[in-house]
């Protein structure tokens, strides 16, 4: 019983931790996207579209990970 209760606590900590970290990471990724979006106006190069595309993709993945944190865990 004690082992079970310990296991349960570990699970809870993991779930809450995953949700908090994925949320913080989502905020961080959005911040990165906003800064890059601003920077591509300052220096215009041929690869700016690629930078914006990958950054957008990363924001989408971070949001998905945050949502998955709620659904799966």
């Amino acid at each position: 019983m004690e082992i079970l209760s310990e296991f349960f606590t570990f699970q809870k900590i993991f779930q809450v931790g995953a949700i908090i970290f994925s949320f913080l990471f989502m905020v961080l990724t959005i911040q990165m996207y906003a800064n890059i979006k601003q920077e591509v106006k300052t220096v215009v190069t041929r690869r700016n579209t690629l930078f914006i595309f990958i950054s957008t993709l990363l924001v989408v993945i971070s949001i998905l990970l945050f949502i998955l944190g709620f659904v799966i865990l």
Partner: protein
Amino acid sequence: MLQLQENHSLLHALCVKPGIKFENQKADEIVLLSLRAHPITLIPTVINSMLIITLIFFSGFLLNQFLSWVQLIYLITFFLFVNFIYIWLQIVNWYFNIGIVTDKQIIDVDFSALSFRNISRTELEHVEDITVKVSGFASSIFDLGNIFVQTAGSEINTEFMNVPHPARAAHIIQDILKQNGNTQ
């Protein structure tokens, strides 16, 4: 008119006539040179990320008995994503930390994807001196160094750090200055 041949070397770290534009560029202003740090400066990032990947899979193996397989896959995916973001941030910071030399001014863009952006401009006629500093083992082997552009009076001095072929880059800047009537 200064004759410069278009040239892109070392993953666009040192480009002559790079074909880029920047904010507040004048209509008749031509970008002659762009400088980034040598790509070799990204090697620590590659090593760090490889260590992180090893750590992720090792900790996944250790946590195997405490977590369900769905949680384990989520955990590994999440930290691999974190690792990828780390690599991406380093690449973005490297790419957008750029020095631009035009026929009118020198622009130094300092950029961090998470925290700050600093752009300093120096008119070519205000440049007093250009110093090249190459120090250290890696700098000698890979031919990278720092270029310091000193300006007159209270204007901010410009620094281009870990630039590839610093002597060549400084020589090009000096040619541009001479063309502009600045003999330092």
